[in-house]
C-alpha cells in the first residue's frame, strides 16, 4: 500500500519564554537574548500511515500528539526531519477558523474553501451539499456574525468535510457541538472510512480508537511508544498511564483519591467490559438489556468491598447511580480475581454515547480503585424522540 502520510525522524522543540520580549526596546535591553527553556515536544518520531487507513494517535495531554498533527497539517514546521503527505488534506482542528464575521455564510464558504486550496468551480458543485449538511439554507446569506456558535461550527465542519479531502486530520473536534451534530460528524467520518479515505484521529478517548481505527500509535513525552494494532497500542497506553506516566484529565481524579485513601490499590479494577446484546453490533437499541462485567482482583483477602457505578449522559449529566450494598448484595471476601456482573435490564435511554464510572470502596466510603468514565456504551434507539429518556408516551384526542 502507498503511504498517505510519512513522518520521518521528526523532532520539534519549542522555546518556552519566561517573559516575552516582543518589542524592539525590550529586545535591545536584553541584547536580543531572551531567557527561555527548550521544550522537546517531539523527539525523533517516525511513522507511516497507509492510504485508506483510519489511524488513531493516542497520548495524554502534553504528549505531543497535537503537535504531531499540526506538523502533518503543515501548520507547524518540524525542527528537524520531514513530513510528507500525499493527497489533499483537510484538518478539523478548529471549525470555522478564518471565518470573517462581516461576510455572509456563502462568502465565507468560498473563502474558507479557497484557504483549503479549492477552486471556485469545485465549490460551486458542492455548495448546495455544504449548505444542506450545515442545515443553514435560510441563513446562508446572513453575515456570520449573526450566527449562533452552533451554526458557526456546523458551517465550518460542513465546509471542511466537503472539500473532498483524501486525508482528514481530526483533533477531538468531534467532542464539540450538540449531540445530534456529533452523531452527524461521526457518520460523516464513517462514510469517509467506507470510501477509503485516510483519517488520522488524535484523541485520548481509547474507546474511539478501538472502535474506529485500523492502526494506532501512542506518544508519551514526545516519543513514539508503540505503533501497530489498536488493541496492543491501547494496552500499552493504559499501562503507561497506570505506571505513573499520568495525565491530569484521565487519571488525575484517581491520583487525587489515592492520596486520600489509605486503602488505595488493595482491590483493583482490572477491566470493565460492556456486554452488548449482540457482540457484532457495538450498540444497544431501545428495550434491549445491557450488562457490564467488572473484573476485580486483590493480592490479599479483603472482606469489606462495595462496588458502586454511575451512568453519565452525553453531556456529562449523572443519569443513574447505585452500588452493590444498596442493591443488597454482599460480595464477601475478595481474594484474587473476581468477576461481578451488573445487569441494567432494558434501558429506557435514547440515542447517544453514555459513559460508565465504576468504583470499589469500603462500606464507609474509603476508595480502593476508581475508573472515572473510562467505559462508554452506545445507545441506538431509533425513533424520532428527543432527549435522553424514552417514555411510553401516548397522545390521544377526543
Amino acid at each position, binding site marked *: 500500500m502507498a503511504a498517505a502520510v510519512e513522518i520521518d525522524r521528526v523532532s520539534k522543540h519549542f522555546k518556552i519564554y519566561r517573559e516575552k520580549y516582543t518589542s524592539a526596546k525590550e529586545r535591545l535591553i536584553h541584547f536580543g537574548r531572551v531567557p527561555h527553556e527548550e521544550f522537546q515536544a517531539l523527539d525523533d518520531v517516525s511513522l507511516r500511515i497507509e492510504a485508506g487507513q483510519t489511524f488513531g494517535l493516542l497520548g495524554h495531554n502534553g504528549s505531543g500528539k497535537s503537535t504531531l498533527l499540526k506538523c502533518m*497539517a503543515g501548520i507547524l514546521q*518540524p*525542527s528537524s526531519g520531514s513530513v510528507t503527505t500525499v493527497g489533499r488534506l483537510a484538518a478539523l*482542528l478548529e471549525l470555522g*477558523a*478564518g471565518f470573517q464575521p*462581516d*461576510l455572509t455564510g456563502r462568502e465565507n464558504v468560498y*473563502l474558507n474553501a479557497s484557504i483549503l486550496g479549492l477552486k471556485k468551480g469545485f465549490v460551486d458543485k458542492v455548495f448546495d451539499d455544504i449548505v444542506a449538511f450545515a442545515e443553514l439554507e435560510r441563513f446562508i446569506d446572513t453575515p456570520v456574525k449573526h450566527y449562533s456558535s452552533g451554526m458557526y461550527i456546523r458551517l465550518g465542519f460542513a465546509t471542511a468535510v466537503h472539500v*473532498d479531502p483524501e486525508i482528514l486530520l481530526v483533533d477531538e473536534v468531534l467532542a464539540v457541538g450538540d449531540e445530534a451534530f456529533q452523531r452527524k460528524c461521526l457518520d460523516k467520518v464513517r462514510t469517509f472510512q467506507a470510501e477509503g479515505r485516510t483519517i488520522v484521529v488524535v484523541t485520548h478517548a481509547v474507546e474511539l480508537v478501538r472502535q474506529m481505527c485500523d492502526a494506532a500509535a501512542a506518544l508519551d513525552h514526545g516519543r513514539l511508544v508503540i505503533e501497530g494494532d489498536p488493541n496492543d497500542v491501547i494496552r500499552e497506553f493504559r499501562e503507561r498511564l497506570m505506571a505513573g506516566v499520568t495525565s491530569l484529565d484521565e487519571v488525575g481524579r484517581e491520583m487525587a483519591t489515592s492520596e486520600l485513601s489509605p486503602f488505595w490499590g488493595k482491590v483493583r479494577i482490572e477491566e470493565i467490559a460492556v456486554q452488548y446484546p449482540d457482540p457484532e453490533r457495538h450498540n444497544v437499541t431501545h428495550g434491549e438489556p445491557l450488562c457490564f462485567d467488572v473484573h476485580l482482583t486483590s493480592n490479599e483477602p479483603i472482606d469489606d468491598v462495595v462496588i458502586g457505578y454511575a451512568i453519565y449522559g452525553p453531556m456529562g449529566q449523572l443519569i443513574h447511580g447505585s452500588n452493590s450494598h444498596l442493591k443488597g448484595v454482599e460480595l464477601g471476601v475478595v481474594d484474587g480475581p473476581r468477576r461481578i456482573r451488573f445487569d441494567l435490564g432494558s434501558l429506557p435511554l435514547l440515542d447517544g454515547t453514555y459513559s460508565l464510572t465504576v468504583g470499589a470502596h469500603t462500606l464507609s466510603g474509603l476508595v480502593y480503585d476508581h475508573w472515572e468514565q473510562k467505559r462508554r456504551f452506545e445507545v441506538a434507539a431509533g425513533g424520532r424522540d428527543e432527549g435522553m429518556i424514552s417514555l411510553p408516551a401516548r397522545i390521544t384526542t377526543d
Partner: protein
Amino acid sequence: MTDLSQPARTITPKGHLGTRVREIFRYRELLVNLVRKDLKVRYKSSVLGFLWSLLTPAMLLVVYYFVFSVLLPGGIPRFPIYLLSGLLVWNLFNVGLVSGTGSVVGASGIVNKVWFPREVLPLSAIGAALVHFFLQGIVMVLTLLAFRHPVGWTYLPLLPVALVALLLFCAALAIFFSAVNVYLRDMQHLVEIALLPLFFLSPIVYSYDLIANRLGRFAGLYLLNPVTPVVLAFQRAIYGNYSDVVHQFPFWWYLRNLVFVIIGSSVLLVISLSVFRRLEGNFTEEL
C-alpha cells in the same frame, strides 16, 4: 475521489524556493479571494461603498486646486494633476506596504489553523491596494478629461513597466516585514514612520529637477530610491507634455531606470522570500 493532480507535500525546515513559488502560484485563487474579502469587509456596511475610494482623491484634487492654483499660484502649473500622478504611485506603495506588513499578524486566526503558503497574505494586501490604485486611476482619467489635459502618449508604454517595478519592490518589502513583524511587533510602526521621510525623498510634492539640479553630478544618487523612477515615469507620461517646468528626459532614460528597479527588486524579492521561509517555521508559536 482521488485527485492525483495534488502533488506530495513535504514539510521540513529545508525547502526550495522554486517549489515555494509554485505553491504560491497554485494558491492564486486564494489570493484573489483574500483581496475580494478585504474590499468587501472594508466597505461592507457603508452606503457609498467603493465610491469612497474615488471621493478621497477627488476631494484632494479640489482642495489642492484651490490652495495652489487660486490662493498661492506659481510653481508647478496645474499642480493638482502633477501631484496626483505621483500620489497615485505613492498611495499604492504606502497602503500595500503598511497593510502587507501587518497582514500575517492580522490573519493569525487562519495562520494557526490551516496550512497555505503564507506569502499569499502580504501579496493579497498589495492586491487590495492595487484595486484602489485602479479606482483612483479612474479619478485621474476623469480629471484629465475634464481639463482636456495633453497626455504624453509616447510615454504611456512606460506605465505598465513602472507598475511592475513598483509591485515587485513593494512585494519584496511587504513579504520581508510581514514575517519580521510576527516576531517584532514594532515593525508595523517602524515601517509607517520610515515611509514618511521616504515620501519627501520622492519627487511627489515638488519637482525632480529641484533636487537633481542641486545634486549636480550626483543626481544619480537621488534615483537610488526605487520609488523615484516609478514616480518619474508616471509624471512624465501623465503630466510631462503639459509643461516643461518638470523633467523632460528621453523615453529610454525612464525605461533604463525602471529596468534597474526591476532587477534590484527581483533580487530583493528572492532574499525576502527565503527570509520569510526561514521565519515562517515558528509563526504559530509567536502568534
